[in-house]
């Protein structure tokens, strides 16, 4: 199965929600739509699902033109951020409802529902109603409905956003296994870079109604085509600052400079933007090639095993992310080390150049 968009766009009352987009999403892995709130993830999903009319372009499912088909006839499943279940039906009936609509035989429905419920550990809850379930169970019920239906495409629109942190982690781990080998194209929208990385597969970066880049997740993470793409795919936010390249050297406004290597060294002299991920700015020196910088620590954060520090250097706020706990003094100067070999360089127009 594949979903193919051919310069598909969406316009609502003269406002462009999705600019002409072309991409092919395949089965066998997750297709992640990554972008901040309002970047057009949900709009794109609705377009593919047939919930919103397409302004121009075409959509193909497995080569078949479905542009004019209604949602009902596209045979898709959609799981929302909010737990959408039929409140008056039991969990069993909820999972069975799309199968009943499809006119499936009763015995087959039972088998399918049982299977989906087993996978999602809903077995003991089949006779309860959604409001008697916890949030995580309600969302599992919605997922079970999508699995039982065996649709051609499954759209998951930030399905974990409203769940408890730990629950999110557990369900996120299970998701790829749930849909593995089912033949459906799985499209997963999220605003969290880490979620995209954990789900793997392919990622489409979205920004302001455009897919800016599409490809294998890890590859896009390592080689963002533009500065915007790098920003979308980084949490905490990626550090960026303008540098002047002169000869083999890059110089930050604050006077810090380092030797350029490889591709970066071959660039013509001039002004560029350097972007360095927070985990390449560390409070401890990792290698002798690291560039020492100093900044005033504004805020520190701790999440389990990692700690981050937001600090001010020159006109820019910088972020450092490191394993372990580090003794920062808020408001005090602190030394950090840039791993310059991991820096990305962008031309003034935002393109990745090295």
């Amino acid at each position, binding site marked *: 199965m594949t979903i193919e968009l051919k310069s598909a766009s969406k316009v609502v009352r003269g406002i462009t929600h999705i600019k002409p987009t072309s991409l092919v999403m395949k089965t066998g892995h997750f297709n992640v739509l990554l972008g901040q709130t309002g970047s057009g993830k949900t709009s794109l999903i609705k377009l593919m699902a047939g919930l919103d009319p397409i302004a121009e372009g075409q959509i193909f499912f497995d080569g078949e033109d479905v542009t004019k088909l209604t949602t009902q006839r596209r045979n898709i499943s959609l799981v929302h951020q909010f737990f959408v279940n039929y409140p008056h039906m039991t969990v069993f009936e909820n999972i069975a409802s799309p199968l009943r609509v499809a006119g499936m035989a009763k015995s087959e429905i039972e088998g399918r529902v049982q299977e989906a419920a087993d996978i999602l550990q809903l077995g003991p809850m089949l006779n309860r109603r959604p409001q008697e379930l916890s949030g995580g169970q309600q969302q599992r019920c919605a997922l079970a409905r999508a699995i039982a239906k065996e649709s051609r495409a499954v759209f998951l629109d930030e399905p974990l956003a409203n769940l408890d942190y730990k629950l999110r*982690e557990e369900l996120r781990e299970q998701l790829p296994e749930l849909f593995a080998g089912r033949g459906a194209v799985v499209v997963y929208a999220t605003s969290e870079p880490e979620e995209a990385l*954990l789900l793997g597969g392919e990622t489409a970066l979205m920004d302001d109604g455009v897919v800016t880049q599409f490809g294998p997740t890890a590859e896009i993470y390592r080689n963002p085509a533009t500065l915007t793409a790098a920003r979308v795919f980084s949490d905490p936010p990626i550090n960026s600052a303008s540098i002047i390249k002169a000869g083999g050297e890059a110089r930050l406004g604050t006077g810090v400079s380092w030797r350029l290597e490889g591709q970066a060294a071959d660039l013509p002299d001039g002004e560029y933007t350097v972007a360095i991920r927070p985990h390449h700015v560390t409070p401890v020196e990792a290698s002798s090639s690291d560039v020492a910088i100093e900044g005033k620590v504004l805020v520190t*954060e701790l999440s*389990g095993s990692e700690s981050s520090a937001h600090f001010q250097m020159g006109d820019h706020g910088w972020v450092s992310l490191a394993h372990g706990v580090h003794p920062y003094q808020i408001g005090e100067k602190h030394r950090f080390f840039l791993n310059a070999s991991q820096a990305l360089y962008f031309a003034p127009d935002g393109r990745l150049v090295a």
Partner: protein
Amino acid sequence: MAKITLSNLRHSYLPNPSGPADYALKEIDLDWRDGGAYALLGPSGCGKSTLLNIISGLLNPSEGRILFDDKDVTDLPPDQRNIAQVFQFPVIYDTMTVRQNLAFPLQNRGVNQSKIAERVAEIAAMLEVEEMLDTRAAHLSPDNKQKISMGRGLVRDDVNVVMFDEPLTVIDPHLKWKLRSKLKELHQRVKATMIYVTHDQTEALTFADQVVVMQEGEIVQIGTPVELFERPQHTFVGHFIGSPGMNILPATVENGAAMFHGNAVALEGNVTGSGGTTELGIRPEFIKLSDAGIPARVRKVSDVGRHAVVETIVGDIPVKAVVDSASVEQGEEVHLTFEPAQTRLYRDGWIATEVAQ
């Protein structure tokens, strides 16, 4: 500002609770220092919101007392406790401007106009909302609305405690860290006692000096963020804090030595107690893939960019390791070594090793 004491607190939503299972809160005893930043951390339904509502006075506990600076406030209604609370969904007086919203708690208490103006200006500056002071609050974005809700809590200088009930729920993910850090900064500036309720470890660990981890109506550990991460007193804490959480592995104890799947495992210190169900606890960060050690097979490798999470199985027990770069592949046979100083034994869930000397 006040010190807060909770003594023998219990609460049940049932009229006649008969057993421990009927209690949403089981026996809470706590002392919170004046001016401290505390977090109540736990999954939904662990009783953290119940506890918060009891402190604010929105709920009366079935048993026990609440003291603010040694003064019993158990029977006082919320408005007489001098507290402030920020709710999950921003509470805004729609018809008022931002300025009127911020002034509201002061006006209700008959504070004089010049003092109100001064406090509102101060808080607005702190929250960086000065330029929107005269817009109607109804037109603000969710994060600004939540800032105003916080502002209403902070504008009074006589509050005993400011409480936050999952205040970042409706905030856009990419704005969360800004508000998180704003909150931290606010605490450092106003020095009020603050209690922050959340299920999100980052929010709790970032905000609080002391985190109270709760599970099923019970406090399982109170500690600094570092203590919770490094030496969880309970397997639940190990599991709940850290991403991925601590590996909790079935183990046996033979002659004071721990055995995991037929391999002897060195622990941080001597084993205490006896009997019960024993488990090993080790964080994925402290497991290394090496040439020798416990044999395992790689089930899955997730490259998270800054590190990789390697899921292995030992027999049929999953063990996760966090490594710097994804150097192994799915299906590969590897060996795991556990860092002894970070390997602990748990008995019936509770820690059962002595601290390394």
